[in-house]
């Protein structure tokens, strides 16, 4: 088997460890890289995602979830931002189980940074999806 064939085989079939690292990276931002000994990447990626997530709440943002309470098919509009928020992993699940951060009082909605807040929370989830894919690729040997 040539070197190119060997590399192709390695990158085509991801080992179970790669899937595990991907899931861990999704659940806790930064941990997927940390477990693989990629300290700098873990600090940069995990740090950026956590700062984005915490900043979102500090700015008065809220998380999205599918409630089904909107009339007609309007509830479907809640699904895309929910998928984005879900990217943050365990923090979203904890918030969902404790029913924290989904509802917001009128005073919170009146904050000048309210829109920024939920956008930051959404971006934190989306950035963590990128970090998750990076951790998966490293564990699968597709990336150095």
């Amino acid at each position: 088997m040539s070197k190119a064939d060997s590399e192709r085989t390695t990158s085509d079939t991801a080992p179970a460890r790669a899937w595990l690292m991907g899931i861990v990276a999704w659940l806790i931002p930064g941990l997927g890289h940390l477990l693989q000994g990629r300290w700098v990447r873990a600090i940069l990626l995990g740090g950026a995602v956590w700062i984005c997530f915490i900043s979102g709440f500090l700015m008065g943002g809220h998380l999205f979830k599918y409630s089904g309470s909107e009339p007609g098919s309007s509830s479907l509009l809640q699904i895309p931002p929910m998928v984005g928020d879900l990217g943050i992993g365990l923090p979203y699940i904890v918030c969902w189980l404790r029913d924290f951060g989904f509802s917001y009082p009128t005073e919170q909605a009146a904050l000048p940074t309210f829109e920024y807040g939920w956008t930051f929370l959404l971006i934190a989830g989306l950035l963590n999806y990128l970090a998750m894919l990076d951790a998966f690729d490293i564990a699968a040997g597709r990336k150095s």
Partner: protein
Amino acid sequence: MRHFLVMTTFAALAAVVFGTVAKDSNRERVVYGLKVFAEFMVIGLVLAWILYFLPF
């Protein structure tokens, strides 16, 4: 000022992640991260000025 600070924070965080996951060498990553940061800032400011002049 607050809006500019938020935009800068967003651009910096996104640039860190984009720069870290992309490219092969550290030098390329830093250059790419700085480029992404600059693009977010410039495009954000340009869009802000365009929206400022729109009457709705």
